[in-house]
């Protein structure tokens, strides 16, 4: 149970970074940390003590870990990269227009 609590603590570190920091790049990194913690939590739910990885081998009949959360986390990791690339592109455009990464100085929407 302590593993789940530590995983939630990692998520809260990411939330702290996303709501307190003034630097746009730190906000992007904090959202990445939140993504890591959620993926780790899903894989922690699927573990069976003493079981092996879910790959069949000829002549062996062993207990294996749960494969369904692993399939969901595979999807999640791929989408995380696309979202991070999109956020980085947006941050570059913002820097080009406002010449700063400080979110308190980016006020008006310039058309």
């Amino acid at each position, binding site marked *: 149970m302590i593993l789940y609590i530590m995983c939630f603590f990692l998520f809260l570190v990411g939330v702290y970074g996303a709501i307190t920091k003034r630097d746009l790049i730190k906000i992007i990194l904090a959202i990445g940390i939140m993504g890591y913690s959620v993926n780790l939590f899903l894989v922690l739910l699927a573990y069976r003590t003493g079981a092996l990885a879910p790959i*069949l081998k*000829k002549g062996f009949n062993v207990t294996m870990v749960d494969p369904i959360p692993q399939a969901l986390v*595979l999807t999640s990791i*791929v989408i995380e990269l696309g979202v991070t*690339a999109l956020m*980085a*592109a947006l941050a570059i455009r913002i820097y*080009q227009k406002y010449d700063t990464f400080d979110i308190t100085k980016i006020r008006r929407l310039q058309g």
Partner: protein
Amino acid sequence: MQNNFPNEGMSVIVKTITRFTVWLIFLYGLYIVIHGHLSPGGGFAGGVIVALSYVHLTLAYGKNFVMERVNKFAMNSIEAIAAILIVLTGLVGLYVTGYFLANFMGIGKLYTLISAGYIPMLNIFICVKVGMGLYLVFYYLASFKPQEG
């Protein structure tokens, strides 16, 4: 093939080593894609490894060397065609069995390379799509020039 920009990119040692390692990384990516149903890996991991081999080439030789050899329109088209082929496979499954994206090819023998229905074919389509797409993101990022005004 001549190099019109010999002073860009990294040093001569890195450029010489890159000529060997680019093909090794590409071959490793293809191995992981094709053996996706036999060992850990699959289309997504292999696609990103193939994209990383292109990124390795771009980082070592400089972006101008790559920009005059890469056809952007061809890479965009190949990525879109691979995505359309995935949907077409689903429609063929709908036509053959009556369920969208059903496994219409033969199952084959377990533990062999040619088995598991359409899973190797779909792995190759996904590899092409993910690899081209992610390399193009890096390419546009590298050739982005902040213009004035």
